[in-house]
């Protein structure tokens, strides 16, 4: 190896290394910031749902995959949303359980965290029936209906996949709960709830 080629070896290797590292991080950023499929939520509270809607106050439905690690951040943000709400909405946290899994498959750490939230109803959704009724396709999908059953908010409450922290969806949801009238949508980040497209 000549002196010149040896002199440029380390900078060249460093450049390649930096390029590969940048690409890897770019892939991660892209993955985490790519929104999941947005819900095609009914504008009115679905009549066929088994979930109970509250009278005189908003109802919040949070649909999640019990084993989606990204949903941990969504649950953290949901806790934040409920804490910042002046009007406490009736809250359902619905964990889907696809067919073919054993009993208590859905009883994960997410389930336990959800159960620990005060005033929240945690429900198992066998085969994702309720999720389909609400048109949800991505874990962390959050829907808010007003006291009259009109859809106020549909979207996710994290800034990116699995990332905690204040974000547009969370702020919009808090605003919708507190105002009772503002309608908003936000991107949802999380695992697909179904193996197929709705």
């Amino acid at each position, binding site marked *: 190896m000549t002196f010149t080629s040896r002199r440029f070896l380390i900078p060249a290797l460093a450049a390649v290394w930096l390029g590969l590292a940048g690409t890897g991080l770019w892939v991660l950023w892209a993955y985490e910031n790519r929104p999941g499929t947005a819900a095609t939520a009914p504008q009115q509270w679905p009549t066929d749902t088994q979930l109970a809607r509250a009278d005189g106050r908003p109802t919040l439905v949070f649909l999640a995959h019990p*084993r989606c690690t990204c949903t941990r951040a969504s649950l953290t943000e949901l806790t934040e949303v409920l804490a910042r709400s002046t009007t406490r909405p009736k809250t359902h946290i619905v964990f889907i359980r696809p067919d073919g899994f054993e009993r208590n498959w859905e009883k994960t750490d997410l389930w336990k965290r959800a159960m620990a939230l005060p005033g929240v109803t945690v429900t198992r959704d066998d085969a994702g029936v309720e999720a389909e009724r609400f048109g949800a396709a991505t874990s962390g999908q959050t829907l808010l209906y007003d006291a009259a059953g009109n859809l106020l908010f549909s979207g996710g409450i994290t800034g*990116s996949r699995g990332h*905690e922290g204040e974000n547009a969806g969370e702020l919009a949801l808090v605003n919708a709960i507190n105002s009772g009238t503002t309608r908003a949508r936000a991107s949802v980040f999380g*695992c697909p709830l179904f193996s197929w497209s709705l």
Partner: protein
Amino acid sequence: MIADSSPATDHVVAARAVELFKDYEHEIHVRTDRLFAGLMALQWVAGVLFALWVSPLAWTGATSRTHLHVWAALFLGGLLSVFPAGLALLRPGERSTRYVIAVAQMLMGALALHLTGGRIETHFHVFGSLAFLAFYRDWRVLVPATVVVALDHVLRGFLWPQSVYGVIVASPWRWLEHAGWVVFEDVFLIVGVYRSIREMRDRAERTAALEHELRTRAVLVEDLQKARKLAETATRARSDFLASMSHELRTPLNAIILYSELLEEEALDRPGDQSVEDLRKIQSAGKHLLELINGILDLSKIEAGKMSVMPEEFDVRSMLDEVVDTVRPLVHKNSNTLTVHVADSVTTVHADITKTRQIVLNLVSNAAKFTRLGTVTIEVTRSVGDARDYIEFQIADTGVGMTPERTRRIFDPFTQADVTTARKYGGTGLGLAIVSSLCQLMDGSISVDSRPDEGSRFTVLLPVQPLQPADTPVADEAAA
């Protein structure tokens, strides 16, 4: 401290200080490189384990696959760790190595943020990493690290502002706020690094100066040792020469004195023989020469370490009587009065009687010689010391005395109080030097107090018992 501040020496010390400083720097860089190599490996393993624990699988309905975070921790973490760790191990201390490590460490922070879901706590990785990078004591390393953080914020702030600022739309200059906090830490770290470097430079300068001083001292010590060896060799040669020459001189000289005495006796038997006076002059000159040779012989034996002490039990009073008998004619010759006081506590001592007698006799003879129409006093007492008892001989006279300058040199060999003294009073100038050496040899001491025209007082302290008989030299006096 040996002061040698010539420009050439200063230049050498300064050059050595620079060399030492560079060595210290390199040592720190290498050590920190190795620390980071370990840290990189640790972060890689920790990242993989964390991903496997927190997000092992990504789910799509009923199906699952390995989560992207696991692959990212494994491959991207590996990529970020292996290259800098490899450089740290293969090219430790190189500037490019620590720059790559700085960039890698900050990118590792970005990866950690992804793996932990952007938790605010993970941002401390950035600040901790900057502090760790300051271990290099090279402020320049903080620059690429800070640039990576700033670029990350600029890029993500532009593409996905929510992921970094938590809002959908952020000011295009918001990255400056975040980078500003990083620079805030950088400032303190740089100040710390600067101070540390200054201390390191001071240490290098002190070490260089110390090294130079040690080298100079070593050369001096070597020179001194050589000179001492030469001097010892010369002294031994001189002593050997003097001893043998004195011996060779004494034999014919004794013959001359003896024959001149015989001739004098014969001349005295022949009335009117004019040669008697001349023969007496020959005897006097011969005796003086013999005295001188004996003195030189004694001194050379002492210097050569060939004079031994032969302690024995003897009565001090008896020894003094012998001395007084010997010196009495000389005392009376100058019309002096001799007084002897011996304390009751003075009985016997265990010492070399010959040398003790020689000491006292020499001092009393001197006192009698340098005093005219005066008094010579011998006082002997016993004094108690810390470890043992001493016999103290004080020989005082009311003679010519000495000035302080002359008193200081009185025990040096070949030194008399005055150049005219030898002419006026006779003597070889060796007597007191020999007395002083004998006192030291017998583990004793001698001192003098004298005033011009008032007289002198010599004080000799000799131990009543030697400390250990084995302490005395064992050289064979007869062999000399």
